[in-house]
């Protein structure tokens, strides 16, 4: 049914920026999907993919800041970006709520990313026409 537009996607990113190409390939896909008139239901960050939601990444100025690019995409197209809470807490990605709960010295989650459980992934999988995974390569 590629011809009938307005299909929906859930994208799952499990590879970290500056360690894998996963966030880049996922962004290329997401932009093309939106351009074709489809909708991204949500982007779910899992495993090492949660590092994409860091507010503190500062790559050299001649390199793309993938966290910034993804933030902009999510905001422009009102797409929820959700980092898995279990993956995020282990890897040191927290918002202010988690900062307080675990008495941590700071929060580092980039706007508009949110933190939530795997239920968000399950729901996306059920609702969306397709769920695609973007893993680390090699």
């Amino acid at each position, binding site marked *: 049914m590629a011809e009938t537009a307005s299909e929906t996607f859930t994208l799952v990113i499990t590879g970290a920026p500056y360690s894998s190409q996963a966030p880049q390939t996922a962004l290329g896909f997401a932009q093309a999907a939106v*351009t074709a008139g489809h909708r991204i239901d949500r982007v779910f960050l899992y495993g090492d993919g949660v590092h994409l939601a860091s507010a503190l990444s500062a790559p050299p100025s001649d390199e793309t800041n993938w966290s910034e690019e993804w933030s902009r995409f999510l905001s422009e197209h009102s797409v929820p970006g959700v980092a898995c809470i279990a993956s995020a807490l282990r890897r040191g990605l927290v918002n202010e709520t988690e900062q307080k709960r675990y008495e941590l010295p700071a929060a580092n989650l980039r706007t508009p990313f949110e933190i939530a459980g795997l239920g968000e992934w399950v729901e996306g999988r059920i609702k969306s026409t397709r769920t695609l995974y973007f893993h680390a*390569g*090699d």
Partner: protein
Amino acid sequence: MATIQTLHILNKSPDHPRAARCLEMVSEDDGLLLTGGGVLFLATGHLSGPGKVFALSPDIDARGLGEFKGSNAELVDFARMVELSLEANRVISW
């Protein structure tokens, strides 16, 4: 066009153990889309299995594989990747 049963998206180089596993599970009605390091299969030429083969163009260019374009895979851009993912009844990302 014939419907693709399963679209296998492979972003692992021919060295990666998951790449061999993926190729074993592609059947005749399936499509295989090479992305990332997976496009290096164009250089090794080990793609004699069943199923139609696609390869993501920007990943080919990045790796300097222009000379292998059109050899044994249909080149696609992200727009076509989106279409393929909807045309297939199922997508598996390896």
